């Protein structure tokens, strides 16, 4: 169950994050989940939005460098040890996690974790075999 995520290159400069989000906001695109990876020189803004292609186009028109790639969304029981169980599945199968970020959705019981594994297809297979519930794009967008 792949999900499209858009990533935006941000220079570590005042106002750049706001500028990117402002563009998204003006296009009336709702951000479902967001994370920022930052280093001292640059940042990567990662977002799950219902209309990734539209978001990419509009950001590129405004001279941002954007990439759309696949990630996995997993529903995690909102209780201690929930995420640990999932990582254990991946770890046992020797699947490396590049990054992940989580958000809690009010309307459901579960926390949602966005995971990027080194090899996305293997990641999906391993999670499926391990009985982990993955969310479809529609499920995430309409939460």
């Amino acid at each position, binding site marked *: 169950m792949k999900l499209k995520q858009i990533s935006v290159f*941000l220079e570590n400069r005042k106002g750049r994050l706001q500028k990117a989000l402002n563009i998204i906001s003006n296009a009336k695109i709702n951000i479902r989940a967001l994370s920022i990876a930052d280093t001292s020189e640059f940042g990567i803004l990662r977002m799950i939005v219902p209309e990734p292609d539209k978001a990419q186009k509009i950001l590129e028109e405004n001279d941002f460098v954007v990439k759309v790639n696949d990630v996995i969304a997993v529903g995690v029981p909102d209780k201690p040890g929930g995420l640990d169980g999932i990582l254990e599945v991946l770890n046992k199968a020797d699947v490396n996690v590049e990054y992940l970020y989580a958000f809690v959705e009010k309307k459901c019981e579960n926390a949602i974790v966005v995971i990027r594994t080194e090899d996305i297809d293997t990641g999906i297979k391993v999670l499926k075999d391990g009985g982990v519930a993955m969310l479809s794009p529609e499920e995430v967008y309409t939460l």
Partner: protein
Amino acid sequence: MIWNSEAECMSAEDTRELQLKRLQEVVKRAYENVPYYQKRFSDVNVYPEDIETLDDIEKLPFTTKTDLRDAYPFGMFAVSQDEIVEVHTTSGTTGKPTVSGYTRKDLDIWGEVMARALTMTGVKKSDRVQNSYGYGLFTGGMGAHYGGQKIGATVIPISAGNTRRQLEIMQDFETTVLTCTPSYALYLAEVAENEGIDTEKLKLKAGCFGAEMWTEEMRKEIEKRLHIRAQNVYGLTEIMGPGVAMECEVQEGLHIFEDHFYPEVMDPDTLKPVPDGEKGELVLTTLTREGMPVIRFRTRDITALRRGKCACGRSQVKMDRITGRSDDMLKVRGVIVFPYQIEKALLKIDGLEPHYQIIVTRPEQLDELEVQVEASPALFSDEVKHIEEVKRNIENIVHSEIGLRVTVNLVEPRTLPRSEGKAVRVIDKRKF
């Protein structure tokens, strides 16, 4: 073949003797006829009679582009307007153009040096020279024209532009020699290929290319695509136009026509002469020019002089291909760096936009060099470690090109300044 073996193969001793005599004459002429020089020489208390040896030239002040601009339009002329038979100007890309005035005799000399230059590319009376340098105020067109005519070759004064017509004429007139800028030569080759013209079937055998900086890689490209020998001509409007120096068939440097132009190479910071073989800024003095003598003109071009008899038989001093300009030369931790070297390194990386900026700082005692390049989809990844890998890769490529460690930083697209003319590539924040 050598056009003027008496001059071009003259012994070093005879050359120096002739140069001293001519230097004394030109300094006197400049002092007596150009108020600018009279004032500049008097300011440093040097007079024509103080030039007793060639080394005494170092007593004379430099002439800069600004000086020539301030004299716009005719302030540098040493003869009355009646004797000036032609004027040219620089393009004025970096400010007000500078004017160059020529007497009848100056034009003869210009024809003579360009005849020598074209002879080096193999031009004879029987040749057809397609002169695709621009005619007009730019010196390229007329310079090559006079040279070709002096030899007695058939000059085709087509000027630059109108590329399809250029190719038609080249085929119909059976052009043997092409004179133009190297980038135009490449463009001609490209259009010929697109039009399905077999460049191997053309009668072209050689080209005399100049008026802009170009690399050895570009020469090879032109030679391969046009099936000719490509040689480098050097000149500048302030001194004469094309024909100050020309590369012979050995293709290892350009012979300076030093019976007419006296070359010096200086450290651009200290303005002290550097030994032969070492890089520095070329300074030129016109030895025979009547209309507008120019004394110790700082060309800003970086080159090195090499003496000794050349395999082609000529003895006149050679200068290296121009590798940069002193106005953008950087000294970082004692190492000389030119933006073009960094550019060359960056061009080796796929997906990199050719927009960059070099920032030099001195946070502590040591200089730091930062190269900013614009991120592009090809360089960007959603993973920090990949971006850092890209950065390190660029850093290593630049390091192996210039021998200095640099920090590469990716910036957002279209954030580095763009310019129609010469881009500002270097920001030097060091305080000296």
